[in-house]
């Protein structure tokens, strides 16, 4: 594919620095990017655009954005090659800081867990059976999260921003977790880096989801049990204990 959009007078535009995003819908604005949904020849796709941050010095801004686009593209590719479910990359437009990728139709894991939690709450209309089912669904999805992160770590990819907002469910199915948002990812073989990755997830998870201590334990158990390298996984989780302690012990005043 060499052309993406043609104007009325059939002038061919370059695939770089495409300024307009036809029929785009803004889906979300995260910490550094705007995410649009667009229609490319009938294919639903996502454009993630790192826009210029007004608060950041332009030199710093360009350096950071450029580096993160590259990291995101690299990790998406590496995951895809190794059978981890991530959005397929369609195009990278470096001058306009945009990545085009496959649109994943489905809710975030965060939303899924909220839905389960609502169902598991006792109300006049819920039955014990729906409650038990909702509970089992939460356990299942946590097991899947642990398993998939273990596979990502096994590729020596550290995600850098593991939260339940950065996991989508293809077709809303709990067995199809798609990882997104690799802008803070990097390559590392170090136990420490992977342990910190789990720590980032743990804090975001426990702060967002009710009853989460138990569910997070499920993530960790599955992480170890399903890791392609269980011994390494064990060492990472041991390290996680130390990382946690470091946080709590930190001297803090003023």
């Amino acid at each position, binding site marked *: 594919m060499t052309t993406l959009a043609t104007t009325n007078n059939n002038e061919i535009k370059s695939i770089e620095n495409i300024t307009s995003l036809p029929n785009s819908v803004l889906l979300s604005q995260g910490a550094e990017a705007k995410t649009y949904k667009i229609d490319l020849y009938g294919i639903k796709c996502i454009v993630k655009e790192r826009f210029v941050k*007004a608060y950041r*010095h332009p030199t*710093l801004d360009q350096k950071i954005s450029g580096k993160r686009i590259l990291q995101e593209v690299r990790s998406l590719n590496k995951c895809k090659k190794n059978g981890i479910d991530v959005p397929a990359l369609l195009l990278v437009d470096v001058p306009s800081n945009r990545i085009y990728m496959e649109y994943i139709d489905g809710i975030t894991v965060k939303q899924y867990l909220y839905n389960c939690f609502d169902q598991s709450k006792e109300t006049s209309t819920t039955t014990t059976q729906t409650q038990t089912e909702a509970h089992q669904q939460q356990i299942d999805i946590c097991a899947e999260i642990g398993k998939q992160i273990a596979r990502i770590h096994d590729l020596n990819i550290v995600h850098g921003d593991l939260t339940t907002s950065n996991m989508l469910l293809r077709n809303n199915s709990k067995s199809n977790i798609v990882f997104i948002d690799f802008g803070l990812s990097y390559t590392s073989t170090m136990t420490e880096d992977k342990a910190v990755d789990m720590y*980032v997830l743990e804090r*975001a998870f426990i*702060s967002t989801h009710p009853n989460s201590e138990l569910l997070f334990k499920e993530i960790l158990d599955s992480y170890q049990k399903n890791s392609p390298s269980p011994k390494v996984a064990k060492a990472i989780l041991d390290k996680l204990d130390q990382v946690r302690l470091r946080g709590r012990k930190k001297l803090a005043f003023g």
Partner: protein
Amino acid sequence: MVLVMGFEGSANKLGIGIVGDDGTIISNIRHTYITPPGEGFLPKDTAKHHRSHIIALVQRALKESNLSYKDIDCLAYTKGPGMGPPLRSVAVTVRMLSQLWNKPIVAVNHCIAHIEMGRLITGAQDPTVLYVSGGNTQVISYSLNKYRIFGETIDIAVGNCLDRFARVIQIPNDPSPGYNIEQLARKGKNLVELPYLTKGMDVSFSGILSSIELLAKDKEKMKQYTVEDLCYSLQETLFSMLVETAERAMAHCGQKEILAVGGVGCNERLQQMINQMVSQRDGKSFAIDERYCIDNGAMIAWAGYLMYKDGVTTPLDETTTTQRFRTDQVEVTWRD
């Protein structure tokens, strides 16, 4: 009206405040221990400073507000986190006054007090909190009865980084090292490249400090840059990291408001950057000036009141202090 007297002395600021149950700040006075340029404050000397000024400060607070000790309903003090000796010298005074005046005591978490004071002054409802001071750097969000720490520094606090750099370049500690760096930074022009390290919502500053220290001491390289350039670059880099992580927490929690508290929170460049950030995402920012941002007694009194009204008092034999006291250890009973 219920009146609470608050006592703060966890670092080099000694503060006494009197606050009413409707949030009126009746008195809020402070005495700061200032050390010569190039020197930080040591725990022992800071404690001595607090001990020698606290009684006079209590008397002044009562006198200025035309109150007698009899009008006070409760005494609130900082239990922690902070430096051991200064915390203890204030707690001892509070225990003494409590017995002398026959008043109940409430032990308060210093970080929670910063947050609640910020909410009181600004009217922010449910903000993401950027807590930035000499000893703390945390991104906090309230959920499920706790102030949760979403991100924090993995090494030194942002204020500590600024203070230590101020010592390297030997600028005065009066009124505060951070304030003086801010003034110099206004005149800086050239951005020096410094490490930029964020991990999810966590940040690391120690690499920045050592790299700028090296540069400041390198006479050859310093022919290219001014001290003002260094202050400017330091602020730009540190604050970008803070604003970035705060924005990440806002996005994750779906919050529209952001509130900066703690001593570094009154830096005008940081406030400007926060404003620029929220204006690009249709949010709202709240900032407070140095009277309430920098450690003070009124914030301890107000947080103490929130607990006191929910029936919390601290028995005399539990009125201890602790250097480590995390924000997420406190059960928040006064919010839903």
